[in-house]
């Protein structure tokens, strides 16, 4: 209850403001003519303005004057030892354009500056990036004796949670595991249908409830089903949710608790992140880590032009390892994360 009063006062002030503004408007502005019942015009009176379009700088590649990667370009700068501002500017640009973010980019550039580049800047940069990604990435798929291993999937709307579950289910059944899917997204329209179609493709059992049902109870039922059929792994979908809502995160906490109760044991909680996401991904990781004890990241949509550099910041700051990457919409478009390949792709911008 601590902040209620302060909050309400704040809002009252705004309310008061609105009233006074409304009054002033009444004084100044003649009453509007009766509004036409049906607007023919949504927004009118186009106003010419300078278009940014023309002002947009040429692409990095053009700027660098060759079709080769920055890596080559940087190497061509031939710098050894101390680094010039020009070189550091190129490095900065590469990192920013990959969504690594200002803070992390500044830190990396500063590190390069002090450390120098005895083996050339490309190598030095690669080493720093690779160093940021230096952690264990094994995936737990076994629970304790007598328990059902649970993988829980969390993330914001539309990042690819359900698709990732479909892909992983395909992978696991192909390995001969018996898999149950829990349609824990009871919020979005037709989310369970979507998962059911994936279950069919993968040959996995799907447990679902009606829309609006309690997600915890779906997971509870799915655990029951998995245990009674002797299935060895349960993949649990959850509804996409924004990461700035305590209520939604609390709901997720509850879901996780249910999934971790006998006979279930949550062995992995995957945060699904969309590679096209910018700096907000760091917030997402922070909030979902706190609410659901995330153990790994699945980075999706790396088949596009986005580089997903924000995971560098996430791994450095929050130490959550990326475990899988999504590279398409098909059942087989999911691969284990390869840090070396990832760093190369960042530098090939």
């Amino acid at each position, binding site marked *: 209850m601590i902040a209620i009063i302060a909050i309400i006062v704040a809002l009252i002030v705004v309310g008061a403001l609105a009233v006074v503004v409304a009054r002033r408007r009444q004084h100044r502005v003649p009453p509007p003519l009766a509004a036409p019942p049906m607007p023919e*015009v949504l927004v009118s009176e186009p106003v010419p303005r300078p278009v940014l379009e023309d002002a947009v700088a040429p692409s990095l590649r053009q700027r660098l004057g060759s079709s080769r990667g920055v890596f080559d370009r940087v190497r061509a700068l031939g710098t050894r030892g101390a680094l010039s501002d020009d070189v550091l500017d190129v490095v900065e640009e590469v990192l920013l354009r990959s969504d690594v973010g200002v803070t992390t980019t500044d830190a990396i550039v500063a590190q390069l500056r002090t450390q120098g580049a005895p083996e050339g800047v490309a190598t030095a940069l690669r080493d720093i990036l690779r160093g940021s990604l230096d952690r264990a990435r094994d995936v737990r798929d076994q629970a304790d004796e007598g328990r059902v291993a649970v993988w829980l999937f969390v993330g914001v709307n539309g990042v690819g949670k359900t698709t990732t579950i479909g892909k992983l289910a395909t992978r696991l059944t192909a390995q001969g595991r018996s898999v149950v899917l829990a349609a824990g997204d009871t919020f979005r329209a037709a989310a369970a249908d979507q998962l059911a179609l994936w279950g069919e493709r993968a040959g996995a059992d799907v447990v679902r409830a009606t829309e609006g049902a309690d997600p915890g109870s779906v997971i509870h039922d799915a655990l029951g089903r998995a245990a009674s059929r002797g299935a060895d792994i349960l993949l649990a979908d959850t509804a996409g949710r924004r990461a700035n809502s305590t209520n939604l995160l609390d709901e997720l906490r509850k879901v996780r608790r249910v999934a971790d109760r006998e006979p279930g044991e949550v062995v992995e909680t995957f945060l699904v992140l969309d590679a096209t996401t910018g700096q907000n991904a760091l917030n997402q990781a922070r909030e979902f880590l706190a609410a659901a004890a995330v153990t790994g990241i699945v980075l999706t949509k790396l088949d596009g032009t986005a580089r997903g550099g924000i995971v560098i910041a996430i791994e450095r700051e929050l130490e959550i390892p990326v475990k899988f990457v999504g590279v398409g919409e098909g059942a087989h478009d999911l691969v284990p994360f390869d840090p070396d390949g990832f760093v190369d792709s960042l530098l090939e911008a």
Partner: protein
Amino acid sequence: MFDTLTTRLERLGSSLRSRGRLSDADLDEALAEVRAALLEADVELSVVRSFLEAVRERVAGSSLNQSLTPGQYVIKAVHEQLIEVLGGTTLKITYASRPPTVVLLAGLQGAGKTTAAAKLAQWFKQQGRQPLLVGADLQRPAAVEQLRVLGAQIGVDVVSGSGTPVEVARRGVDEAVRLGRDVVVIDTAGRLAIDEALMREVREISAATAPHYTFLVIDAVTGQDAVATARAFHEALALSGVIATKLDYDARGGAVLSARGVVGRPVVFASTGEKLQDFDLFHPDRMASRILGMGDALSLIEQAERTMDAAVVAESAGRLMSGTFTLDDFLAQLNQVRRMGSLGGLMRLMPGVTKEMRAAAANVDDGELNRVEAIIRSMTPRERRDPSVIDGSRRSRIARGSGTTVNAVNQLLRQFGEMRKMMRQMGNGTAPVMPGGRGRPVPTPRQTGSGAEVPAGFEALAAGMRARGSRGPAKGKKKGGRVTPPKQR
């Protein structure tokens, strides 16, 4: 977390204040802050560059105003430039003389097209039109099913069917003609801009249905890739405009600026939540404030205007400032505020609010507000007027009556007392003056108790509004569905 650009520049402003004018070095320093903030907001790098150039020119081209600190001066220039870029060109939606008016939606996977399609159909319906939804996303499992469920919720028919997406879309338009529907909204599968086959397909859909409007649906949390995506879709489809989604996320939404800058077409609609009613025309000034981290005071004020009872608010606001606020007033206010929506949602819009306070507000649920209300309702009229008469035995009576604990009653009374004191101090110092007026901005209490502190956002906002003329926040306000565009010089 990081400070907002506004606070950073304000701070910079005070160190520059004494010098009275903005030197080149000062400006460079300020622009470096602006650059970092824009990048932090995910504005694309080349868009940032041209933006900074424009701000520099803006600052250089005008003489310094005595009433603004140099920091505020830069904020004002940035704010103006943001509004110019976000809102310059506006879109005119007219309906085809030979219906139906065809609207095509396209975008990346997961951008929110299907939900946006339903919301847009609902919007047309509210405009008195008879829309038809066409489900041409045959790629994602159950996408059509999702659209059908949403269509049923808003009472709009959905057609889809077998065949290729091109065939389905064409049939959809034919169906609209047959049914006499005057607007068709076509949902398409998500696709990557570099997927040539799928980009060809969406071009074919466009050729087959000859849309009057083609909108790119773009996720507000998109990073640097927003530019490449927007450009590719624009080249393929000649976009009429952009629909920004997921603006309820705690993101600055620089992607909207990037896409806007590159495509040169207006952002027309904004989607701000999962519910079907969370959809409205896009307001450039509000987006500008978001990117600056100033909160969204305009939306808040508008929401207040829509839902609050002006007389009630004005009366108790007056008493609030003079320190004679009673628990009755408080109760009345509480009900006004509750009519506006969830506290968490409202606090997100509030400028000058700390992250902690936002988090606290997000945690306040209905049950908690009900308890507060129950406690006050369990008091006698005299107790509500003068809480100082409430002694121990009265406290336990109130706790029993409201089904709460003495502890909760104590807490409420203590906070109420503190708030009254705080407001009295504030009332003595400054009379509230509206943005758009000449005087000082409205103080907003902060949780920290340093109640008289003025939120930076408001000051800048006030400055921005002064600069844009005396129309105040009435600008761009919806009247019966009609929107007056923000005027540019």
